[in-house]
């Protein structure tokens, strides 16, 4: 029983990492119909930014977080300008490849600039965590879970209760119509990228103390986050969260009770099954094409 509880906690913790990154995916997808293969690298950039600011320069943790978020926001705008905007009228395929190119550029750019050594980043709390009975609660995982829950609630309020949020939703649902209503679509999309990059950077900051900071750290999360968002229902924000958490739990239990080396396979096996039985995912809706 104790083991199952520990696995559950860790599974949720890992899952919340996937959820955070998946959220970034979904937002960009809803606004632009594009899957951003560089989403994981946003997390990597956020983590490296923290390393440079807090470790190399030795600045205070909170300052590092603030500056990293600002940097990631700026980066999101840059990414939009350089990678998405020039291709916005094309089909989704060139854009996907462009994001793949961006991913390669980011990973190798950071590699060239910083070097290949993995770095460590201290967690938010000095203490590693605490035990209750047989279960150890890692403080960083708890932080991630808390931030995810809080962040999603905040995001819900923003999208549903503010005018800006509704405008963003409009753009993501029907660009043409939104534009006819006077909503500056290009600006809204830029905002979406900014927000998504910031989210990705935040995920990186939270994840770095656990996974350590390396050039490859984003890529491994991103793929699973993508799978998670499809399981949850592609294009649905709740789906991204639920899918991420579910994936983390399935993976962890699968590793413990079935096979550790095939752990990465479980995620995709589940995805496969979902795509066969219920392709719209847990929360998604089938959208019929109008003739």
């Amino acid at each position, binding site marked *: 029983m104790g083991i199952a509880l520990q*696995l559950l906690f860790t599974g949720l913790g*890992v899952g919340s990492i996937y959820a955070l990154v998946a959220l970034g995916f979904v937002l960009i997808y809803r606004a632009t119909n594009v899957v951003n293969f560089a989403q994981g690298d946003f997390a990597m950039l956020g983590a490296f930014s923290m390393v440079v600011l807090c470790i190399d320069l030795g600045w205070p943790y909170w300052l590092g977080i603030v500056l990293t978020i600002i940097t990631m926001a700026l980066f999101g705008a840059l990414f939009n300008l350089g990678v998405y905007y020039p291709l916005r009228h094309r089909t989704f395929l060139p854009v996907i490849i462009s994001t793949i190119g961006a991913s390669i550029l980011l990973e190798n750019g950071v590699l060239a600039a910083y070097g290949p050594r993995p770095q460590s980043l201290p967690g938010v709390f000095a203490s590693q965590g605490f035990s209750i009975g047989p279960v150890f609660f890692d403080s960083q995982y708890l932080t991630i879970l808390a931030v995810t829950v809080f962040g999603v609630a905040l995001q819900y309020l923003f999208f549903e209760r503010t005018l800006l949020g509704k405008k963003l939703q409009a753009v993501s649902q029907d660009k043409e119509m939104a534009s006819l209503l006077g909503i500056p679509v290009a600006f809204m999309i830029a905002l979406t990228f900014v927000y998504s990059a910031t989210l990705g950077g935040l995920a990186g900051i939270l994840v770095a103390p656990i996974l350590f900071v390396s050039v490859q750290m984003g890529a491994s999360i991103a793929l699973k986050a993508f799978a998670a968002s499809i399981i949850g229902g592609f294009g649905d924000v709740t789906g991204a969260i639920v899918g991420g958490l579910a994936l983390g739990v399935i*993976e*962890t239990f699968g590793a413990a009770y079935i096979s550790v080396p095939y752990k990465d396979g479980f995620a995709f096996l589940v995805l496969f099954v979902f795509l066969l039985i219920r392709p719209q995912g847990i929360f998604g809706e089938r959208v019929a094409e109008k003739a």
Partner: protein
Amino acid sequence: MRFRTLALVFAAASSVLTPLTSTAADPLKIGMVAPLTGPGAESGRFQMNGAKLAVEQINKSGGVLGRPLELVVEDDQTTNPGAVLAFSRLAGDASIPAFVGSIRSTQVHAMAPDILKTGKPVMIGGTDPQLTKLGNPWLFRFRPNDSYSARVIADFGVNVLKLKKWAIVHSTDAFGTNGMKNLTEALQKLGATTVLTQGYTNNSQDFTPVALAVKQSGAEVMGTYMTFEPDQGIFAKQLRQLGVTISWVGSPTTVTTTALKLAGPALYGSYAVVDFNRDSSPAAKAFAALYETTYKSTPDVFSSWTYDAMTVLARAINTAKSVEPEAIRKAILATRDFAGAEGTFNFDQNGDGLHGYNIVRNDNGTIVFDKHVEFRD
């Protein structure tokens, strides 16, 4: 495309001009295949450092056959086809008599057919025992292979620590799987029991299931073959969080600088087998001091093996008084009791130069040399 033309023009120009300047002090080129890009880029840099350091030392004391050594490096991109292309590119230069190859066994395997065809000596650092059993006479290994690391782990754990119930945690790549196989065999020979064999895929983000499995197995001691330091770090931390305090004897990754930095206190008190440790011999100390003065950082296994490889190679060419492949080969194999940074080199007929490992201990963050175990069979 302009770069290509520029390069061609430059090459043409230099090939015209070179004969005009050729003298007896013509540099002797040694080819080197190293990862400059890809996941192995970090180790590639250290490998080059070690080789360059050796070249400097050799050239200071007169060079090889009166000529200064020059290193020609090609990037293998940390992939198999990359290694093959890098090697064949170097091999296309007929003036290169010998090469320093890869530390990754799969890359050496990939290059092997071309090495056989080229028929020139290649110094390698890959530790798959199979590499010296391929019947390829041109591979010379400058690190003790994994059958030795496994035997030393087993020997130390069973005979010194007196622990007989083992858990083996290993990465599922070539290094980890072979290490596991060899360790299982070695433990069996010593009458110990393996209560858990747990593989994991590289770059796992979470090791809770592995840590729990170790905890549940009731093992007294853990032998590990882990390839990447982040995995090492996450695993160590989670193991300790779950309250597992058993002894740990690990592969060389367990004590690299990066591993220590990432895992911190979670690795205190663990043991590891390493082929390179600065305190293991006077030669190692000398190399470490030299490396630190030159590069202002601590050396590790990546630089020590290439340093030894270049040094032994230069000696062999000088002894053979020739750059003919067969002559170099005989001279390398005839190397006896040569004190290198990695250890004392005695080449056997298969091309293995080292037959033992060092045991070190993580003493609250400092790596302390414990002993050297050598096999004379």
